[in-house]
Every structure is written in C-alpha cells, then in structure tokens.
C-alpha cells in the first residue's frame, strides 16, 4: 500500500499555480472561521443536551446562526482601552493568538491528491519537510498572545491569568513535544503528509508463522504517545478540565478580563480555532489523517478522490465532540494538581516510553534470544527497582491538637489549660496535612504511581 | 683538607643555625643569643680554615664545587671564590660575631621576639656568604634577592624611628635593581648559550649592543645596591632606621655586594661595555664622593651621617674600579674590606652612643667624652679610620685608589682628593660636637650616659680596632690574595696598566 497514486509526497508541493495556492489559503481560513461558528454552536448544543436542556435553538435552524449573532453583537459593544494598559501590546495581543492558531492549519492534510480543474494537487495548503515543527511553532507562539494580553492589560487578574496560562501551556508543550517523538521515530519524517502516508502503510506482524496485516494508526501502535498527546492538547488549548487561566472563581476571566468587544471575540475565536486545529493535528498524527477507518477500507475507492475529506472531517468532529464531552463531564482541576500531572506524570512516562520504543526498534533486527535479553534485562531491573524501592513510610500524622501544641512559642495566643477551645478554622487550615492529589485517576488510562518512574 | 666543600658548608651553616635559633623558646632569649654567637664563631673558624686552604698564587677561582640544580636551564649550585670574594667572606665571618655581640640587648627594646632577631642575623649571614661564594649567575641572583628579606625584617621589625618607611624603601629600591638584573640575567642566559656558569659566560661572545644593555641591567642593580650617587637615597634612611648591628652589616657588607658585583660580573662579562660606560661610571662616582660628603656635613642624625660617609666611600671604590688599573682596583677591593671594618666599627660605636642616649641627634650629645672617655676615644678612632688617617687601614686603600686613578685620569683623581678634605670636615665636626666641648647638662642627668664601655662592648670593638691598625701597617696578606684576582679582572677588561703596578703596590703597602 506504500505510495499510491493519491498519496502526496513532499515533491507534490510547491508546484501549484498561484490561483490554486490562493484558493487553498482562503479555503483553509474559511474553514477555520466556519469551524469556529459551528463549533461554538456545537459545543453549546451538546453541553445543553448533556445537561438536559435545549441549548441555543432560536437563531436560524437549530440555532445554527447563534454564534454569528453573538459575533455581530460583539462588534457593536464598546471597545474599552483601560488607562493602565500598554496600548500597543494590548492592541496586538489578540491578533497574535488568532494568527498563530489559524496558521497552524496550513500544514494539515485534508485529503489526498485530487484533481481540480485539471490540476492534480494535494488537498492540503502546503507541506514542508519540517511541517510538524511549523505546527509546534504556531502553538508555542500562541502563548505570546495570552501572556502579552495579560501583561498589557495593566491589571492584576489578567496578569496572573496570563502567567498561569503561559506556565500551563509551556508545561504541556513539553509533554506534547515529547509525545510526537515516537511518531517521528516510527514514521521517519516530519512532514504531515508523510506521516499520514506512513500510517497508511500499516504494519505486519507474524503470528504462528503467518504474516498478518496489523493496524497502521499510530493511535494504536503508539497508544501511550497518543494518550499523552491528547491530554497535552487539551491542556494546550486551555480547555476544560484544564481551563485554569479563566478559572472564574479565582481569576475572573483570566487574561481576558480587561478585553471587550471584538478583541474579546478574537480570543474566543482563537480558542476554538485552536481546538479544531489541534483535533485536526491529532487526526493527522495519530488517527490516520484523511484515510478511511477500518471497516470502510473494504471499499477500495474509500481513499481516493474527494471522499477522504469526509473521513477527515468526521474524525475531527469526533475529536471536537470529545473536547466538549470532557467539558461537560469533568470538573476543573486545581492548578497544582494540573502542573503535577504535566511534570510528574506525563513527562517521565513519555521519556521512558520513548526509550522503550527506541530500544524495541533498535533490537528489531536481532536474534530472538538476544532481543529478549536486551529488552528483558532493563525491564526486570526497572521492575525490581520499583518493587524494592525503599518506600518512605510517612510519619504518623500528628493529631490536630499535637500540631497546635508544636507551634512555636508566641505565634498564637494559647488558650488556658482548663478551657478546651477547639482549634480555629484558620489553624486547622494552616496545619492540615495536604493530601496528595490522586492524579493517576484523572489521567484515566495513564493511571500510574509516581514511584514507577 | 683542600677538597673539603668549604663554600657550601660555609653558606649552609648559618642557615642551619638560624633554624635552630628560631625554634628556641621565646622565653629564653639568652640561650638564643649564646647559640647564635657560638654558631657565628664556628663559622668564623671555618672561614679561617678556608683562608688557609686558599692558595694565594693559585688559580683565579678556587674551592670550586658544583652540583646540578635545574639542568633544563643549565643552573648549578656552583660555588667558587677568588681573592676578592675570599676577602669579603672573611669580612663577613669576622663582622657577624661582633655584630651579634654588639646587639646583645638591641632586640629587647622592641616587643618582638628576640630569638627571631638573631635567627634573622644568621640568615643574613647565610645569604651574604652565598652571594659572594656563588660562581653561577643564577645562584648569585638568587642570593642577591633573598638577601633582601632578612634585612627587610631586621630594619622593619627591630629598627628605630621611621623603620617602616625605611624598610619598604630599602626593599623596593633593591628589588627594582634586582629586577633589572633579572632581565639582564635572562638576557645573558639567552645570548650566552643557555648556561649560567660564570666561566662559560665570560668566554661567551656577545653582540656589542646587547652587551651594553645587559651591562646596564647589571650595573643599575649594583649601583643601587652599592649605592652610587643617584641611587643612594635609600641608604641614609635604612642606615638611620636599622638597629646598629644590622646597620653595620648593611653598610659594612651588604652594600659591598654592589661593588663586588661590578668587579665580578660587569667587568669580566661585558668588557667592551664596561670600557664604554666607564666615563659615566666615573662621573657618577666622583659626584657621589663630593655630594655625599657635603650632605654628611649637614647631617644632624648620627646614623644618617655615617650612612652618608659610606656613600662617599663607595664613590671612592667606584672610582677605583672604573679607573681600570690594577693599583686602583686593588685599592678598591682593599677599600671594600677596610670600609667594612671602619664603618662597621663606626656604626657599632654610634649604636652604643645612641642606645645610651636614646636619641641619634647630634644636638642631644655634646661633651659626652667627659662622661665616657673610653667610648669617646673609640669613636674618635673610628672617625679617623673612616677619614683614612694614615696608619689606619683605609688610608692605604684610599691612597692606592687615588694613585691608580691619577695615572690614567688626573681630573677625577683631583676631584676625589677634594672628597678627603670634606671627609675630614664631617668626621671631625661630628666627633667634636658629640664628645668634645661643653657638657650638655641633660647628659649628666642620664645615668646610662655615665656607663662607659662594658666588657662586652670592649670585646666588640677591640678586634676591629686591632684589625684596622694591623691592616694599616701590614696589608700584605690581604693584597697578596687580592692582587691576582684584580689583575685577572683587568685583563678581562682588556686594560693593561700604564705603569708597572705590582711593585708600586708592594711599596705603598709598606
């Protein structure tokens, strides 16, 4: 199945006529805007259904035009420029966000090579050798929009929101970046079309002497990477349950607090475009891109012509639904839990997984026994280390009373000996043992103990 | 016994003594003094044996020993001595015990450790012997520089008024000179074929221009050390501040390193350059004679005065050296010895006076001779010796210098002679103002001024007086040793005497 006629390679790019390029660019942009309009509607409807209420259903059929109406309304709201704001940066911050999230679409493959007015062209704006780096660059640059917006507002809440948001995004950027390494390793390329092609190639594994076709999607082959990538995607897009920058109870609306009118709308737009873009990237990297899923592949024409666009969009919608689903069902995480998940769980698992995969691949050509030895010994050592790791028994938690007594002299007026006054809520809070957050449970399938790394 | 390693033993012995003395308990100063004295006497004995072992008519450099030190640079521990060095070594060996004896109570005045004082004196002796005994330029340089350290502490820690200033000035002057010499030494090493052996270097063929520069490097160092006229300003300070014993060594021996160095290194190593520079050197020396003498006349501080007389005397020595006649050269070397004895005596006696009065100002004395006739007499004798009274040893040397110079350069000789008159002026005036005349009433009230020479002090001055008189009448044993060396040096320079020299010397010495 390698390199079928419709599979674009890197050589397929850079030969389009100018109007074709222009058309693709405009279409990609329109896709982004439309996706936002529909995405917001979709989210509100789905969440509404989940919460057993109708959601927007007045403007247009099924309330489809609700978002458009909101946007137009937004345009006629007053555009406030706070006195303390840094004017220029305040002005440009939302545009940075939007530009970054939209530009990422340029390297996402929507489909195979198709024929447009006699021109054979891949259904993808462009592809370069380092396409995935372009994606990462865009998502990294997006941080600037947020942190600058927060800083330029000249206000405390946006500043803290922006900082938190940037800390969050860069933390998950690490996890995301590492999880793609496995993809590169398997695909041997950084070009998005190449990765899609590589997933189409499938694998073969031998069972009882028979060579059988295996799944080609990296979501299956590289399951840990996929899971980490998806979690990181959610964190990267500031979506629930990781929507901490906008945690209303703590930071009002985060970095957007001082923004109004269309500038606010642009931030919203960029968030939804990011969501869609990230879904598209996930599809490209892990879910076979525009290739039809398994049962459909029985039909031989499924992966040619314009059909793949449908599969692609279907997968994206599915992922967007998962985003919405997460929002509808999961509570927001606490900030420390969230950071701990990123740094203490995703990161080490990722590194170990990369090493394991690399080791597996390096030894793939070896004799069976050698290979077992080479792979088995480190695994056994690691397991032994985990089992025999001297587990520190936490010191028996002193009772509240003991802790109160242990406080340094003079820090708090002591109650008389005979009077049994219960500790005040403040003391209780101050000395209460922090229970470690059960992060493994939140990460779902990642479930692991910290000791494992 | 002639293959006994005299020179290295002689060099090392005081060092060992110094270590021993330094580690004696601070609470028993007398023990330290006795050990130091004993040790220096032992050195003297050894030196006398060496004198006997030296054959006056033999090779130029005798008692040669050589041990490898830093082969990569061609550096060896080479010791050897010619007549000139031998005389100086004897001078050291004689002076040090006397100085130790003379400064018996000097260190007690300060709050510093007494054993350390005597240890420093012995270290100084070690370096002084080393510098005269070295026949390796590198080794010579090492001793030349290291010599500063004990002297620096002697002046700085145990000195009198303004001792810090004097010590630093002394050290810096000498170090500056030393560094000039270092540059010259390195240069010599490079052009001389990577060896430091004196004999090899004398034979080396050096480019004229280079030689002149190198000569200048050495000469500046020695001129500072000696000190010659424009570089002399440190000496009055150092001499004035140093404790009497140290001052005696400083002026009596240490400074001779300068003139010795010129004779031993500048002249043989760079004969052409020496001839080229000789007029300048002569001019400096002559200016030094007159200028220092004039300054001495105006001095109120006894020790400074004596220091200035030394500067004038060094002028004479310089004249003798750069006259390039055997007579003058021999006179110079003899002068070095005699000056060591005479000025040493003068410093010691002045030190005795000063320690009694607690002041070195001439004005604080006056008529002291009435209280202490013996001391005043010794001072008078020392002064006469210093101004080269016939019958005392310096007379012969001064006479030889002038005679030798006159044959080649009449003008210089004439001007230098004028220095003698000035010398008479300052010495006599000094003696008159301190010991003669009306008695200063303040002196009479001071009980210490009534103490005349003690036995210890008599023991100190007696040998010096004896030597001065002896050499004044019968210098032959010394001149016999000196003459061949000086002749060899003059041969190196390439100057032959205009008149038959040796006979004259013999005659004059009688």
């Amino acid at each position, binding site marked *: 199945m390698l390199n079928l006629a419709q599979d674009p390679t*890197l050589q397929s790019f850079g030969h389009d006529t100018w109007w074709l*390029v222009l058309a693709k660019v405009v279409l990609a942009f329109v896709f982004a805007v439309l996706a936002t309009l529909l995405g917001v509607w979709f989210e509100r409807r789905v969440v509404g259904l989940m919460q057993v209420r109708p959601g927007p259903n007045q403007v247009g059929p099924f309330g489809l035009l609700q978002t458009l109406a909101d946007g137009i309304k937004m345009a006629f709201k007053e555009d406030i420029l706070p006195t303390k704001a840094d004017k220029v940066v305040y002005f440009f911050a939302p545009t940075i966000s939007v*530009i970054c999230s939209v530009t990422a679409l340029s390297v996402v493959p929507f489909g195979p090579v198709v024929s447009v007015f006699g021109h054979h062209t891949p259904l993808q704006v462009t592809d*370069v050798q380092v396409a995935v780096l372009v994606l990462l660059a865009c998502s990294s640059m997006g941080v600037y929009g947020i942190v600058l917006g927060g800083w330029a507002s000249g206000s*405390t809440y946006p500043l803290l929101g922006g900082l938190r948001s940037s800390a969050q995004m860069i933390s998950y950027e*690490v996890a995301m970046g590492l999880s793609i390494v496995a993809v*590169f390793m398997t695909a041997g390329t950084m070009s998005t079309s190449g990765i899609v092609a590589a997933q189409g190639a499938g694998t073969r594994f031998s069972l009882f002497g028979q060579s059988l076709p295996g799944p080609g999607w990296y979501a299956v082959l590289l399951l840990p990477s996929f899971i980490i990538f998806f979690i990181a995607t959610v964190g990267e897009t500031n979506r629930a349950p990781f929507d901490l920058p906008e945690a209303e109870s703590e930071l009002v609306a985060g970095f957007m607090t001082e923004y109004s*009118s269309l500038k606010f709308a642009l931030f919203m737009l960029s968030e939804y475009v990011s969501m869609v873009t990230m879904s598209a990237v996930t599809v490209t990297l892990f879910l076979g891109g525009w290739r039809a899923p398994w049962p459909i592949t029985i039909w031989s024409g499924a992966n040619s012509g314009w059909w793949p666009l449908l599969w692609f969009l279907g997968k994206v919608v599915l992922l967007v639904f998962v985003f919405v689903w997460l929002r509808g069902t999961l509570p927001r995480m606490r900030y420390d839990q969230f950071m701990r998940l990123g740094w203490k769980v995703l990161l080490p698992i990722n590194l170990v997984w*990369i090493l394991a995969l690399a080791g597996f691949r390096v030894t793939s050509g070896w004799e069976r026994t050698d290979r077992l030895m080479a792979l088995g010994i480190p695994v056994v050592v690691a397991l032994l280390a985990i089992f025999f790791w001297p587990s520190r028994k936490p010191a028996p938690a002193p009772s509240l009373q003991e802790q109160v007594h242990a406080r340094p002299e003079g820090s708090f007026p002591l109650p008389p000996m005979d009077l049994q006054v219960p500790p005040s809520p403040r003391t209780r809070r101050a000395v209460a043992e922090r229970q470690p957050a059960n992060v493994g449970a939140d990460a779902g399938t990642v479930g692991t103990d910290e000791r494992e790394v | 016994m002639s293959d006994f390693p005299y020179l290295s033993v002689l060099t090392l012995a005081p060092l060992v003594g110094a270590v021993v003395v330094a580690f004696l308990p601070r609470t028993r100063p007398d023990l330290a003094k006795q050990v130091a004295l004993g040790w220096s006497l032992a050195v003297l004995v050894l030196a006398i044996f060496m004198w006997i072992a030296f054959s006056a008519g033999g090779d130029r450099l005798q008692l040669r020993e050589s041990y490898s030190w830093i082969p990569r640079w061609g550096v060896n521990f080479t010791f050897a001595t010619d007549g000139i060095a031998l005389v100086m070594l004897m001078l050291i060996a004689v002076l040090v015990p006397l100085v130790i004896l003379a400064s018996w109570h000097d260190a007690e005045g300060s709050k510093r450790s007494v054993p350390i004082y005597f240890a420093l004196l012995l270290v100084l002796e070690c370096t002084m012997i080393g510098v005269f005994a070295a026949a390796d330029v590198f080794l010579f340089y090492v001793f030349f520089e290291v010599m500063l350290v004990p002297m620096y502490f002697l002046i700085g820690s145990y000195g009198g008024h303004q001792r810090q200033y004097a010590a630093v000035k002394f050290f810096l002057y000498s170090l500056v000179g030393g560094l000039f010499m270092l540059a010259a030494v390195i240069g010599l090493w490079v052009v001389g074929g990577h060896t430091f052996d004196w004999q090899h270097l004398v034979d080396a063929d050096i480019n004229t221009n280079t030689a002149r520069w190198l000569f200048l490097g050495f000469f500046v160092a020695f001129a500072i050390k000696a000190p010659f006229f424009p570089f002399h300003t440190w000496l009055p300070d150092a001499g004035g501040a140093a404790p009497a014993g140290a001052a005696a060594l400083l002026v009596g021996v240490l400074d001779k390193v300068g003139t010795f160095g010129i004779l031993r290194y500048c002249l043989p190593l760079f004969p052409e350059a020496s001839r080229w520079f000789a007029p300048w050197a002569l001019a400096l020396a002559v200016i030094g004679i007159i200028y220092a003498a004039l300054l001495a006349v105006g001095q109120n501080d006894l020790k400074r005065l004596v220091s200035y007389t030394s500067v004038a005397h060094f002028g004479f020595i310089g004249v003798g050296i750069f006259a390039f006649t055997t007579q003058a050269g021999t006179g110079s070397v003899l002068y070095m010895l005699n000056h060591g004895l005479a000025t040493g005596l003068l410093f010691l006696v002045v030190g005795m006076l000063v320690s009694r009065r607690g002041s070195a100002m001439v004005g604080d004395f006056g008529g002291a001779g009435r209280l202490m006739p013996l001391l005043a007499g010794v001072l008078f004798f020392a002064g006469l010796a210093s101004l080269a009274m016939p019958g005392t040893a310096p007379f012969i040397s001064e006479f030889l210098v002038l005679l030798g110079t006159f044959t080649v350069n009449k003008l210089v000789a004439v001007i230098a002679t004028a220095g003698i008159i000035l010398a008479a002026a300052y010495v006599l005036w000094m003696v008159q103002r301190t010991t003669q005349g009306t008695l200063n009433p303040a002196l009479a009230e001071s009980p210490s001024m009534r103490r005349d020479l003690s036995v210890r002090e008599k023991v100190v001055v007696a040998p010096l007086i004896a030597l001065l008189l002896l050499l004044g009448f019968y210098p032959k044993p010394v001149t016999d040793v000196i003459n061949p060396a000086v002749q060899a040096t003059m041969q190196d320079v390439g100057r032959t005497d205009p008149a038959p020299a040796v006979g004259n010397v013999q005659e004059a010495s009688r």
Partner: protein
Amino acid sequence: MSLSPYVPIIGLFAVAAAFALFSVAAARLAGPRRYNRAKLDAYECGIEPSPEPVGGGRFPIKFYLTAMLFIVFDIEIIFLYPWAVSFDLLGGFGFVEMVLFIVTVFIAYAYVWRRGGLDWD
C-alpha cells in the same frame, strides 16, 4: 511558475493577520463610546484598584522555575527530533548516545523533583 512550499504558510499567516487586524480596528469604529472613568480602571472585583504597580509587583518564583524547566526540556526535544527522524539511520550508536543524553536530563529531573521544584503550592 512554482512557488516555494513555504509561501502558502506565509499566505495563510497574512490572511489571518489581515482578518485579525481588521477586526480589532473595526471594533474601535463600530462600537459606541461612552466615557466613564470607572470603566477604564483595572478590574478588581468592584473594589478600588490597589496602587501597587502591576509590573513592579512580585509574582511567584515558580513561574520562573517553570519557564526554566521548559527551556531545559525544550532543548532536549530539539535534540530528540532529528534523532527520531533519522532513527533508523543512526541505529545502535544513536540509541546509546540518546540513552545517555536522556539519562543525564533525567538526573537533573530527579533532582528538581526531589527538591520540590515540581510542586506548586
């Protein structure tokens, strides 16, 4: 005429930028403007804004720490990517080198973890 494959990226960038700038500018023009001093103040939950300057105030050191950690690991990623792409070419030698590299980073990571650099509270 064939364009460099990078040109479309710039094209999309330009389109997005044009749109965003147009929107931001349009908001200035389209919206009403009713002056109210309170409206222009920084939002502080309805209370008077604190006089503390925002830029001069301190914020938790953890943000810096996170930034530094990010840099460290981002650099690691920079090296991992080319290695991963040409993994098959590099083979065992590359694997060993990369194991050493990752282990080194892991050591630093373990240190940071143990010293509480990853705890946010």
